[in-house]
């Protein structure tokens, strides 16, 4: 195990920035957000989670897919150059690290590989930071996530006395630590701090099986009453990955892009003829919870929730997934 002082952190980030763009959580309007490090300002790696998850780095909120030219009935299509930028994502917490594995299942498996996602994912090294303090809305441990050690990271960091402890997990991680050169010292017998213990607890055992029998249950009418049908929960969720594909015309040319979409919106499932299989917020909210807690586990063998707490922290009406899990387990069939 290696260590680095807080004062040397900017130098470490700068060393990594040599061959890559480095994203770190930085202050923004009272919250923090992953932004490229420009070598200026205070580097704190944030308190708790960032407001937005880092999914935008792999699955941007809007991304061009290809360009086209239209000339009367004729048209040509131009693909975009491959995404080759190397990146290092520093300070990602265990919950968000799990979310990348969930997104990998979606974008990289089941017959088709999403090239846009794959290129960004493969070009990004992950430096995780352990949590030794939970935020009020955190409940990652409910999904078997260890706040003290992230899955899928190249390097694991821990807050330590006056700085950070570091350990390389993968070969790519060893390479990153090598790049740091003599900024790092042997940690001796320093130990990582105890992992955070989230106060919000929920037992997810059996919830998938219960939900399998609850599609028609009146519970969904009750739980969706207060829902505004906005997309805040889905857009702040590190695992929500729904997208739309649309085009933007500029005269004779244009581009097709994809952008985040939300299952909470009416347009999401509305067909060209007007029929909508999920016509109201009841069906839409039900789908959101069933997707996270039943459909995704059925399809990919894991929950599509990582307990980061962003949805319940920012929901304007306190729709709380932990409460939903508890209530689902209690309702009578």
């Amino acid at each position, binding site marked *: 195990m290696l260590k680095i002082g807080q004062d040397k952190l900017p130098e470490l980030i700068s060393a990594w920035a040599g061959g890559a763009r480095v994203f770190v959580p930085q202050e923004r309007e009272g919250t923090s957000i992953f932004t490229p490090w420009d070598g200026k300002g205070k580097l704190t790696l944030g308190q708790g989670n960032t407001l937005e998850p880092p999914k935008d780095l792999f699955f941007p909120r809007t991304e061009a897919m290809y360009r*086209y030219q239209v000339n009367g009935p004729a048209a040509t299509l131009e693909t975009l150059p491959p995404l080759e930028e190397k990146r290092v994502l520093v300070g990602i917490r265990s919950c968000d690290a799990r979310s990348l594995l969930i997104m990998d299942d979606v974008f990289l498996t089941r017959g088709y590989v999403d090239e846009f996602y794959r290129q960004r994912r493969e070009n990004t090294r992950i430096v995780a930071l352990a949590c030794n303090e939970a935020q009020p809305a955190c409940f990652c441990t409910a999904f078997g996530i260890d706040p003290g050690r992230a899955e899928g990271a190249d390097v694991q960091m821990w807050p330590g006395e006056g700085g950070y402890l570091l350990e390389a997990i993968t070969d790519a991680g060893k390479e990153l630590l090598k790049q740091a050169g003599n900024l790092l010292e042997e940690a001796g017998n320093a130990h990582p701090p105890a992992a955070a213990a989230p106060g919000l607890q929920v037992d997810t055992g059996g919830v998938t099986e219960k939900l399998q029998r609850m599609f028609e249950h009146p519970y969904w009418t009750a739980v969706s009453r207060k829902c505004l049908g906005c997309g805040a929960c889905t857009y702040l969720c590190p695992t929500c990955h729904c997208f739309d594909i649309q085009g933007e015309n500029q005269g004779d040319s244009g581009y097709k892009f994809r952008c985040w979409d939300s299952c909470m919106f009416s347009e999401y499932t509305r067909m060209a003829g007007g029929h909508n299989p999920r016509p109201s917020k009841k069906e839409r909210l039900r789908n959101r919870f069933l997707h996270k807690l039943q459909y995704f586990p059925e399809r990919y063998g894991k929950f599509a929730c990582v307990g980061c707490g962003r949805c319940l922290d920012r929901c304007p009406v306190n729709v709380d997934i932990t409460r939903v899990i508890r209530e689902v387990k209690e309702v009578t069939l």
Partner: protein
Amino acid sequence: MAEAARVNPLVPQVGRITKIIDETPDVKTFHVTTETGKPFTPLPGQLAMLSLLDVGEAMFSITSQGPDHLELAIKKVGMLTDALHEAEPGQSVGIRGPYGNGFPLEMMRGKDLLFIGGGIGLAPVRSLINYCIEHRKDYGHLWIIYGARSPADLCFKDDLFNNWPKVENCRVDVTVDRGDDTWQGHEGFVPAFVEELNPAPEGKVAITCGPPIMIKFVLQSMEKLGFKDEQIVTTLEMRMKCGIGKCGRCNLGSCYVCLDGPVFTLAQLKKLPNEY
């Protein structure tokens, strides 16, 4: 272009429309090909994402194919389909696919097949009918029961009245909800017509596709006639964007219709949430 399409499943090939057939006042069949020939070789029942690059992209069932083209029968229902109906041969289009599972050819092999279609719902079923005709020895008796609102709304008239009735061991019955002065055939709704024709379920697989309300009543009729859920096959329509099981919107429970469908047996469908 072809290379890009191979690498990235979301990027279409550019093809063009070579032929447009007016089927009904609001349905046209489009023949689509690319410079290198047929865009791809779908199985019956599979889907294609078709686009006018500067208008939009949507998923359509592939109604048939030739050696170097695909055929898509498309009803005018929205912005893209309105624009397609304005197009003329030579129009460039984007096309990607094939998507979805297609009809269960192995399960149907050796069986008598009963096709029940309504309106534009014959489009996906036609790909299977044509496949069975091409592989005539692999399938038993073919019986096509088809209906539309009016004689003018009957799709694929040439097949219904000329081609299919001539096929060996194949029967075609056509009805319209309401006839006109020239109509000599049957009048009435498809489900009642099916009951009237009274097909026996033994050794058969029934394939049905049409407007939701027709399917609902056809399924009731099939049950009355003694067909089991495993013997009934249908194909679903949902809003789709990616076609590759990633964008999320076409899920029925943990299935994605674009990937795991659009073809389901009624037995499979009954296990999924009723949300289509």
